[in-house]
């Protein structure tokens, strides 16, 4: 341990990916906005204001898609609803109140509410990724039909006639409280929209940097793992989707104020296609890319497809080609590609010594001592009691687990073995909550957790699955941080704990690397660190040595034994050499039942156990 310490880098530096200076983009954008104010005539500024409102709409998609991993066709729906709500409130109330800012707030809230409602149905129904796309698409198209069918004068809310396909009009522009009644001039509106865009952009950046933003990214990267850490994935997706809906609603309100009219076309396919193209061109993972993509595409289609352009009336054709071209050739989008090009150039020219040139972390040659303060353990080992009563699980008539009753006491080390098909994995998944049992109960410290969802159990039960399930797109440090944060909900403390654990599993020098770049064995260590970071009273390890070398297998034995001093550790394992060394209480499962239990020596001496491993049947019965 101390041998390694002297060449440790501060984790903060390693875990943060190299960035261009943050103030640079802000400065450039502000300067750009000022220059454009003087360079463009009123008409140009007017166009630009509209495109900026579009940019906010694109930002809403970049947020839900790029940050939270939810692909939605529904942003135009929230945008359109925002537009209509702004129009209805502004037409009805502007005369009385002398302002339309409330209408803008109403638009934002309406977008958020509708998004939340839709999100509830989709995410709490656990609808799959592609289905989310289709449902949002269908909902938006139905809004198009529904709003289009409101041309009769009876369809009227407040003073506003919805107007069917002719649209809602005339909508007052932005009127500030105490400002002139006729609303903002073109130039003032430009600055108003610039301000709104800047605020929305900064808020989304802020959210992305907050713990919540990292949780979103974690869910995007590996939903199951996020859930196993204790994050309520459904709720967090709803949060992200609602934030996206609010942003789109605000954009819709600004657009309505800018255009003076909203028609059902905002809900139609061309609009949906445009939003996706803006984000695709800008780069879905980049929030500033949303604006860049919007401005590039809108300016190009205005130049090329408008009067005097070279492809008059052929805008859809050009957009289609852009779509296909970006998907095939530049799927990352302009801004992220430009950033990586810039970094590449920087590395080549400035000759920064990249971290990957350092020698790989030395493998463990002694049992690491636990830095208890850094890891933040409670002073006393957590006592826990896990009871399983007559637990059964059958799959279509096959009893994978049949009326198992057991009691595990923690801290302590248990090892579950058994031949293939003995029910080990099923039992494991029942404890974990991934399968609902057919019958029986699971009690944790006397409390019935049989029906508790994954994320609720996660606070008590940590897990390392057989195949490493880490967040491949997050750094090693961020992986552990997410696990620690799930428990303590304190970003700073989680950071310190993650650092301590990194040292403990010998991954400090790889803290800044993406987890997806680790070797299989290293990912196993990382996953162990993730389970530790949760610091649960119970830790389940499913074949912890799978994919490890013999040497690594031997190294992990003392680590697990040390864990068992403070936790209840239940290991499911195939590798008998490994089980031999663990010195645990061994439970042999066979045909869904507990066949034998005792120390490894007892079990080894048990003829019947030897028989079931070898496939002889004389002690086993006739099945």
């Amino acid at each position, binding site marked *: 341990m101390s041998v390694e310490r002297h060449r440790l880098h501060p984790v903060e530096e390693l875990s943060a990916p190299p960035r261009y200076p943050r103030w640079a983009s802000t400065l450039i954008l502000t300067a750009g906005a000022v220059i454009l104010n003087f360079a463009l005539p009123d008409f140009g500024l007017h166009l630009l204001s509209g495109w900026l409102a579009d940019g906010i709409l694109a930002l809403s998609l970049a947020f839900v898609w790029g940050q939270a991993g939810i692909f939605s066709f529904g942003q135009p729906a929230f945008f359109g609803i925002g537009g209509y709500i702004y129009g209805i409130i502004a037409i009805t109330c502007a005369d009385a109140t002398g302002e339309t800012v409330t209408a803008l707030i109403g638009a934002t809230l309406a977008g958020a509410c509708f998004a939340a409602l839709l999100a509830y*149905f989709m995410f709490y129904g656990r609808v799959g*990724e592609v289905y989310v796309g289709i449902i949002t698409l*269908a909902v938006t198209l*139905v809004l198009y039909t529904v709003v289009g069918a409101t041309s009769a004068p009876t369809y009227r809310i407040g003073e506003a006639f919805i107007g069917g396909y002719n649209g809602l009009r005339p909508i007052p522009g932005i009127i500030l409280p105490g400002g002139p009644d006729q609303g903002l001039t073109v130039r003032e509106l430009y600055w108003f929209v610039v301000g709104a865009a800047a605020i929305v952009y900064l808020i989304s950046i802020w959210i992305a940097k907050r713990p919540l933003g990292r949780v979103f990214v974690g869910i995007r990267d590996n939903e199951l793992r996020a859930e196993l850490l204790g994050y309520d994935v459904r709720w967090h997706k709803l949060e992200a989707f609602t934030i996206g809906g609010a942003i789109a609603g605000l954009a819709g309100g600004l657009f309505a104020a800018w255009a003076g009219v909203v028609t059902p076309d905002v809900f139609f396919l061309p609009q949906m296609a445009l939003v*996706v193209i803006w984000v695709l061109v800008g780069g879905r993972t980049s929030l500033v890319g949303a604006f860049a993509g919007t401005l590039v595409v809108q300016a190009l289609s205005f130049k090329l497809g408008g009067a005097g352009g070279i492809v008059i009336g052929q805008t859809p054709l050009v957009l*289609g080609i852009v*779509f296909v071209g970006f*998907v095939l050739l530049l799927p990352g989008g302009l801004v992220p590609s430009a950033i990586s090009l810039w970094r590449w150039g920087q590395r080549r020219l400035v000759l920064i010594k990249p971290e990957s040139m350092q020698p790989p972390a030395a493998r463990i040659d002694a049992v690491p001592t636990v830095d208890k303060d850094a890891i933040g353990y409670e002073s006393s080992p957590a006592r826990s009691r896990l009871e399983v009563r007559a637990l059964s699980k059958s799959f279509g008539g096959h009893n994978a687990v049949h009326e198992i009753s057991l009691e595990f006491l923690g801290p302590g080390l248990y090892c579950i073995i058994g031949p293939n098909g003995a029910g080990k994995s099923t039992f494991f998944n029942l404890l974990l909550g991934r399968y609902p049992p057919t019958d029986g109960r699971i009690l944790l410290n006397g409390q019935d957790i049989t029906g508790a969802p994954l994320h609720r159990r996660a606070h008590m039960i940590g897990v390392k699955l057989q195949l490493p399930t880490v967040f491949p797109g997050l750094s090693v440090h961020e992986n552990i941080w997410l696990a620690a944060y799930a428990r303590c909900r304190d970003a700073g403390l989680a950071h310190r704990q993650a650092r301590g654990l990194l040292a403990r599993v010998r991954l400090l020098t790889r803290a800044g690397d993406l987890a997806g770049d680790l070797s299989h064995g290293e990912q196993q260590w990382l996953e162990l660190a993730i389970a530790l970071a949760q610091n649960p009273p119970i830790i389940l390890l499913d074949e912890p040595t799978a994919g490890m070398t013999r040497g690594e297998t031997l190294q992990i034995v003392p680590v697990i034994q040390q864990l068992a001093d403070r936790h209840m550790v239940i290991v499911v394992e195939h590798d008998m050499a490994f089980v031999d060394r663990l010195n645990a209480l061994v439970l042999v499962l066979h045909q869904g039942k507990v066949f034998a239990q005792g120390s490894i020596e007892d079990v080894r001496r048990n003829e019947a156990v030897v028989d079931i491993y070898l496939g002889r049947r004389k002690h086993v019965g006739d099945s």
Partner: protein
Amino acid sequence: MNPDEVVVIALTALSSVAFLLVTASGLAIIFGIMRIINMAHGEFLMLGAFTVVQVVRWGLSFWLGLVAAPLVVGAVGLLVERTLIRFLYGRRLEAILATWGVSLIIVQSMQDLYGPLTEGIAPPLGSVRIGGFSISQYSLVLIGFAVVMLITMYWIFMHTRYGVMARAASQLPEIAATMGVPSERINMLTFGLGAAITGLGGAMIAPLVGVVPTMGAGFIAQAFMTVVTGGPLMVTGTLASGALLGATNSVVSYFATAFLGQAALLIVAIIALRLFPDGISSGWKGRV
């Protein structure tokens, strides 16, 4: 409500179900086997309808158009698969976006070729009277078409070499490949077949709708919902969800307005998906 009206409502509902089935089946094949959402589905329907328009313009029979449409659109499907889709297997989202690009390109090209105006095709058959009501014979024929189409699909996927391989490849691609299933060819054929059946569906509905380059957009929401609600079994599942959604749509449309019928279709679909997130046929014992 007199007996005639009941019969008419039943027939209308049936033809509405048939309409949904012929417009969704091709999508169900492509989605069911390849897990690709074909955003150009509406445009494949439109191309099928335009094939009929062109054949009729040449003074040939409508029925000949029905034969030509699957060939033409099947060829377009093969072309799209070879030039685009095959680079995007396993990247579902990218496939959605790319086919969307294709749809934009097809719409604009057809507008350049045929103009934005609606082409009408006279229904090739007259109408029959049931009591005080008259119902077009062609919509009855459409019911027959839908039945034949589903039986053919069932036969293809249960009894042909291609069908068995395609199902194998869609369930366990790696295992199927190690057993000698040529997944590349299967995917190509599946996309072509899906496109051909979509084209045929577009041709079948051509006399019932206005044929215009932008018509595809009007069908995709329903078609997608039918396929998604149907779930993993692409013939029986699609049939079940088509029956559920089509009947809902037509009954609500009959008693209220067409627009409420559309809304009811969507609401029923969303409720069905809330209850069966993987579609209503998930967990059924059948094979296709």
